[in-house]
């Protein structure tokens, strides 16, 4: 079987391809370097890729879900230890932030508790020159990419819409309008490709987002322009309250890829070993010119959508308990300890680091940050308008009069 997207009459094929090399050839060439055929590569493997089981045991090779075109070596020990450290930090960050919300020091925090393996792998699979486009639930991934934790949390602290410079870190602002960021990822990849740069872009979204129109448009654009974008779907089973069965009846979300002429893969989203194996290869393939790829990670949102949500209205506690047994952090600790890569000292060092970051968050977010009302007008345009200058003067006058009357009262 050959997988082809040849809808054009033979004499017009490739005459109109926006300057791209014929997609199929580029894909064939790219996967060949990895000893893979396009036929094996395009459809997801029959089962999700899982390397370490929920009890922390490395599965025998024949039971990892791999098959021709979907074979993944276990990542190196150094990478796994780095991932474990980030997992522990990520869990601590999630729980610290939730506590800060309960204490009223932060407006809201959509926690990725339970999804930390996805968060960590998303950051660790990328190189410095690559880009990441995260959603509002991906704060841990942004931190794992190296952005200052307090800057990341600014969006939830409430003094501005974002706290870090996307250009400096090559991380998009955490995106709230669902799925719209996937197209920005496509554009960043397209610009890089036109300049001949080897940038890879990781575009993140959840299972609910796959119902949005922009999901379709982004995957199709990335495929048609043959761009190095990895669409990384964290299927955490719920879009706020609506279960996956109400979003899609596709065989899997990864199977959606083939409709775009794109490869797809399913992976255990609570197994950071499998996630790194799959995403590392995806990044390498994309950098070699394979075009885009869709990776669906099966994970679970252990807590409510946000503090404003009540998840007991739409799911059973037994289901949550079932997923608690598949916890990504415990699984990895057992695996590394059993392999002798992690001892008590190592564990303590990592916990101390996580605690230091939690302290940094507590201090940073408890700090009463002064806001500058004039900043409201400062960044609307690169070149401001007379109307905004007038409105800024109006506010300045109001504030000056308020200050004067406060002073008067004080006398």
């Amino acid at each position, binding site marked *: 079987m050959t997988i082809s997207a040849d809808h054009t009459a033979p004499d017009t094929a490739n005459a*109109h*391809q*926006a*300057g791209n090399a014929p997609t199929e050839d580029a894909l064939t060439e790219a996967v060949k370097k990895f000893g893979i055929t396009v036929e094996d590569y395009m459809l997801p493997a029959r089962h999700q890729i899982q390397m370490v089981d929920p009890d922390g045991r490395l599965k025998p090779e024949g039971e990892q879900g791999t098959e021709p075109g979907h074979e993944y070596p276990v990542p190196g020990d150094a990478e796994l230890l780095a991932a474990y450290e980030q997992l522990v930090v990520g869990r601590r960050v999630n729980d610290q932030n939730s506590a800060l919300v309960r204490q009223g020091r932060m407006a809201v925090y959509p926690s990725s508790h339970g999804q930390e393996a996805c968060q960590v792998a998303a950051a660790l699979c990328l190189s410095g020159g690559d*880009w990441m486009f995260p959603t509002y639930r991906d704060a841990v991934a942004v931190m794992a990419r190296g952005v200052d934790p307090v800057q990341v949390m600014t969006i939830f602290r409430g003094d*501005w*819409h*974002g706290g870090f*410079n*996307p*250009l*400096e870190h090559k991380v*998009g*602002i955490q995106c709230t*309008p669902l799925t*719209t960021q*996937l*197209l*920005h*990822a*496509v*554009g*960043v*990849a*397209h*610009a*890089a*490709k*036109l*300049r*001949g740069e080897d940038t890879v872009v990781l575009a993140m979204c959840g299972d609910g987002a796959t119902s949005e*129109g*922009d999901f*379709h*448009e*982004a995957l*199709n*654009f990335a495929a*048609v322009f043959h761009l190095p974008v990895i669409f990384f779907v964290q299927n955490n089973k719920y879009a706020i309250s609506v279960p996956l069965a109400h979003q899609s009846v596709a065989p899997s979300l990864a199977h959606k890829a083939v409709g775009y002429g794109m490869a797809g893969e399913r992976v255990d989203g609570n197994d950071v070993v499998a996630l790194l194996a799959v995403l590392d290869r995806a990044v390498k393939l994309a950098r070699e010119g394979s075009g885009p790829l869709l990776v669906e990670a099966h994970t679970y949102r252990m807590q409510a959508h946000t503090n404003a949500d009540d998840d007991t209205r739409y799911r059973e506690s037994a289901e949550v308990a079932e997923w608690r047994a598949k916890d990504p952090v415990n699984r990895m600790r057992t695996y590394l300890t059993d392999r002798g890569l992690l001892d008590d000292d190592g564990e303590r060092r990592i916990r101390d680091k996580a605690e230091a970051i939690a302290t940094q968050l507590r201090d940073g977010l408890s700090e009463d940050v002064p806001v500058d009302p004039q*900043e409201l007008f*400062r*960044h*609307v*345009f*690169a*070149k401001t*308008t*007379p*109307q905004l200058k007038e409105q800024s003067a109006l506010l300045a006058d109001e504030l000056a009069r308020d200050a004067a009357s406060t002073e008067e009262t004080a006398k």
Partner: protein
Amino acid sequence: MSPTITTSSEANGNVSAATARAAASAAASAEAAGPQLVTLAKALNTALADAMHADPSVLVFGEDVGMLGGVFRITDGLTATFGEQRCFDTPLAESGIVGMAVGMAINGMRPVIEMQFDAFAYPAFEQIVSHVAKMHNRTKGAVKLPLVIRVPYGGGIGGVEHHCDSSESYYAHTAGLKVFTPATVADGYRMLREAIDSDDPVMFMEPKKLYWSKDLVDLAELRSSYSSAASAGQSSEGRAAVARSGTDATLIAYGPSVPTALAAAEAAALEGRSLEVIDVRTIVPFDDVTVCESVRKTGRAVVIAEAHGFASVSSEIVARVQERCFHYLAAPIRRVTGFDIPYPAPKLEKYYLPGVDRILDAVDDLQWEN
């Protein structure tokens, strides 16, 4: 891959402006010397080509803009001249076009994208309102979006439903967007060059019924005067034009309504009434100074627009003028706009569009007996 494509000179990139400007070349193809009759379509096409020559980060894409040259031929010849990497067709998806342009602008490009018709831009509304308009503000200016969204708009061409909307109010109402709309051939050239060179996102509203209107202009002269103005840091952004001088009343119009306003002023002159016509040119930022100077002089004003009057750019203009010129007014400001109905079918559009007679009736209504 392509050595001709580099990072945007002025936004989110490191290449100096001088380097990019040095690449500017007189795109003088086979242009005749001196003033010629030139269409707005040709002026816009020339502006795109000149901008692409001047800055290698300028890219043009959209639906049918490549081999076909756009359904209105505004991008005619750009793929042939600049190659398929710099002017190309996309899949048919407007949100995709705008969303991809946002990403390209983040990563150093200056995309100039085409929405094929006004009403076909609506699928992109979320990208425009939530990202194009807000990215600069959200990132405290760290990320600039030097992006131009060209929208052929308005009626008067006998178009069927969904091809004749006046959608400028949606964009003008959205904080963070600039909204330009040229009414003359020379303005078409200059304003599109300015929109492309702007570090802010610009909704560039092209009055489609004026695409084939001609003015006597010298394209070479327009090109060189734009270049010298740009290198001197001069811009006509936010500057309305006095399209016709007069003393008795002011007609305020933009885009497709400017020629109609000028025709009304011509007819009024025959009746002995001297009407001044203001061409707004950039709806955002709005030129309060020029508009109010005229109204204070004449004491009377009529605002003309094809769009529905309710909650529209024309409402905004009336409100602004009233706030600033109340004591100079001899009569309430009148509006002549489209009715508040969905855009009519071709055989009915003449009843909908503001015409000379309706404008003159409004002028007659400006309490002259006082």
